């Protein structure tokens, strides 16, 4: 059947939108961190977040999603209503913020709008099936795995894969209880203070078979080699090292590659003590215990933890990194946690490096792990 390729991508984050603008912002070291705008800051000890500017209004997730989806469709040169098009949206909290606004102030709420099928159909003109997956912070990477299956089984001609999440007061408040005082930024693998700050974000890609893309005369942005998905079956919130290792190995097994083939690892890197320690140890275990040769970067330092969107936000960044042979640096990190001392964490300036194969990690609450392996199209960068 041939490879599955990404022919278009879109992204909306606190540092910019559109894959090109977004990636340039990443490589500049831009940060979307700013004073908390959507909630009353006095209620929280943490008063900054990675928000996308806009009005306090319902249906923001759907709107951000719509922006990313339109970009991806345009980038890929396909119509929403095209024959055989299926949509898979991964999200942690769907339109929970809309429910909060309804509860707090009586903003109108249409329950059927809480997942995204209606938005896709009515606002964007998709005619076929839309699936909304809610797989916590690994959701959009799971969505990519589902898309891969749909294409492999011949259930879809083309899949629009997306992820989106916006800050919710309840999630922000919950994290505020566990984050330490004085957390000024999200520092993937960085030394204390450790904690996570949430970000608004949406991303979308168009996935299709290579021969279908070729028939339309489109050159792919990247090849999806495999998605490894599993569940730790261990703890409701804490990650588990062997589960994370297994998901990375499964992704590499499905992609028919070995650890030395990976040229870039976009880490999940949420900045929490639990994640960073566990992920660093798992990377060491999978890639080699002494000195880990693969460059690692943590994008959440710049765009925050975009929850269900984060996996696909990482995928879009990795596509651009492969095309431009450039790896964005992790911001806000100077000293590393002990467990990450052996990692080649890219910090300071963006690093020029050839990236043929990239791995994108995403790990969610509930022990849900999804790891994506991407490959640069053989026709070379920028083709």
């Amino acid at each position, binding site marked *: *059947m*041939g*490879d*599955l390729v990404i022919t278009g991508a879109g992204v909306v984050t606190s540092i910019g939108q559109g894959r090109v603008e977004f990636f340039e912002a990443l490589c500049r070291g831009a940060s979307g961190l700013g004073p908390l705008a959507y909630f009353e800051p006095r209620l929280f000890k943490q008063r900054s977040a990675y928000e996308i500017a806009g009005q306090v209004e319902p249906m923001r997730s759907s709107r951000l999603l719509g922006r990313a989806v339109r970009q991806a469709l345009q980038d890929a040169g396909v119509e929403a209503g095209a024959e055989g098009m299926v949509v898979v949206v991964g999200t942690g909290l769907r339109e929970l913020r809309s429910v909060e606004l309804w509860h707090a102030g009586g903003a109108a709420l249409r329950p059927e709008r809480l997942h995204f099928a209606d938005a896709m159909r009515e606002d964007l003109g998709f005619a076929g099936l839309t699936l909304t997956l809610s797989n916590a912070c690994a959701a959009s990477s799971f969505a990519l795995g589902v898309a891969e*299956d749909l294409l*492999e*089984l011949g259930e879809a001609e083309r899949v629009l894969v997306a992820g989106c999440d916006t800050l919710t007061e309840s999630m922000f408040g919950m994290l505020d209880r566990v984050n330490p005082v004085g957390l000024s930024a999200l520092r993937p693998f960085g030394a204390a203070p450790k904690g996570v700050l949430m970000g608004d974000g949406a991303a979308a890609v168009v996935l299709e078979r290579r021969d279908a893309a070729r028939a339309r005369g489109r050159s792919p942005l990247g090849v*999806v*080699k*495999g998605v490894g*998905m599993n569940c730790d079956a261990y703890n409701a919130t804490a990650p588990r090292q062997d589960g994370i290792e*297994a998901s990375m190995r499964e992704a590499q097994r*499905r*992609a*028919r*590659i070995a650890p030395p*083939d990976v040229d870039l690892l976009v880490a999940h890197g949420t900045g929490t003590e639990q994640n960073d320690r566990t992920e660093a140890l798992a990377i060491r275990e999978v890639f080699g215990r002494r000195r880990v040769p693969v460059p690692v970067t943590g994008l959440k330092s710049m765009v925050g933890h975009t929850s269900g969107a984060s996996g696909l936000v990482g995928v879009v960044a990795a596509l651009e990194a492969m095309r431009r042979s450039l790896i964005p640096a992790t911001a806000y990190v100077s000293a590393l946690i002990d467990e990450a001392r052996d990692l080649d964490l890219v910090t300071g300036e963006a690093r020029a490096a050839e990236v043929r*194969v990239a791995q994108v990690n995403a790990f969610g609450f509930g022990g849900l792990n999804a790891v994506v392996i991407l*490959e640069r199209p053989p026709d070379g960068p920028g083709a």
Partner: protein
Amino acid sequence: MGGPSALSPPRRVAVTGCGVVSPIGIGREEFARAFLEGKAGLRPVAGDYSPPLPCARAGQVVDFDATRWLGKKGTRFLDRSTTLAVTAAGLALKDGGLAVEEANSPRVGVVLGTAMGSLKSISDFGRETLLYERPFLVNPMLFPNTVLNSAAGQVAIWLKLRGVNTTVSNGQLSGLTAVSYAGRAIALEYADAILAGGVEELSAQLVWGAHHAGNREFLESAREEDVYPGEGASILLLEELQAARDRARPVIAELLGCESGFYGRTRGGGVTAQAQGLAAWLNRLMRARDVAPEEVGALSASCGPEAADSVESLAMDIVFGDRRPARLDVKSLIGECYSAAGAFQCTALLAYLGRPGCAQRYGLVTSAGKDGAVACALFKRGD
């Protein structure tokens, strides 16, 4: 990088074992013999149901003593549907001669169809919260039985299966959907072997629930013998075909494919639309595998509720005209086993194709739900 493409053709799936606990026998051979002889499993209701069942007869598994199959240890708090499932799963594994050890355990899974879990456990537990002193002095040991994936979880625990673990709730189609899901999981390399099927326990809650839900034909149809309630578990051991051959196990059948669709009232459907939909899926299934309608020896139908009966009859007319294959009605022997029905139909078909001197190689299984859902599967007899 070399190596095979990440998208090699989906792997082929074999049935190498069957485990059955049914009103007409326990174990594959006993069930097959009873089915082919047309042994009646519908008998006057025995035992105490509170309140008494609103039907004179039922397909009960009368001679089932869980401790005989599973031992006394660890079975005290398991409900009937869980013990039925664990027993059938163990029999399937034994029938297929598959040893689950540390090395292969992460690649062996379980996919179980159950529409509502154990309705009796759920309602008994809920009742306790009302009967006993507050704050809710209920027996915590009974809580795990109330969740839908109790049976799948216990199967994994008892048989040490650490791979894919999925509970499928799809009404009367649950059993067949589970087989379909498992087949795809193996084809797409998410597991190498899966115990897949369905389970249903007879309880006053379930039968009265169906009665009050207006399923009068469940009890009062003109074809009474078809629609008495039944219970049991039917589980297939599915394996990657080459792996089964490599370990020199007899292949009972090959699962060539599954399809499903929905033609309910919300989509403007009706019996005719549902039948046309089912016929289209049957045709697609056979065409994809180059199987001509006249090569199909038998169709194992869901019968049951009258509407479904006519859906399948109409679909057979469309697909086969007057050259109909044999129609297998296992339900007339064991009753409406609801969640397990589709899995029992599979086992019945395999018994039919496997009978001595059977010249036919292909068989179909169909399910048609009252809600408008349809599903079908195509099997080829083993060599």
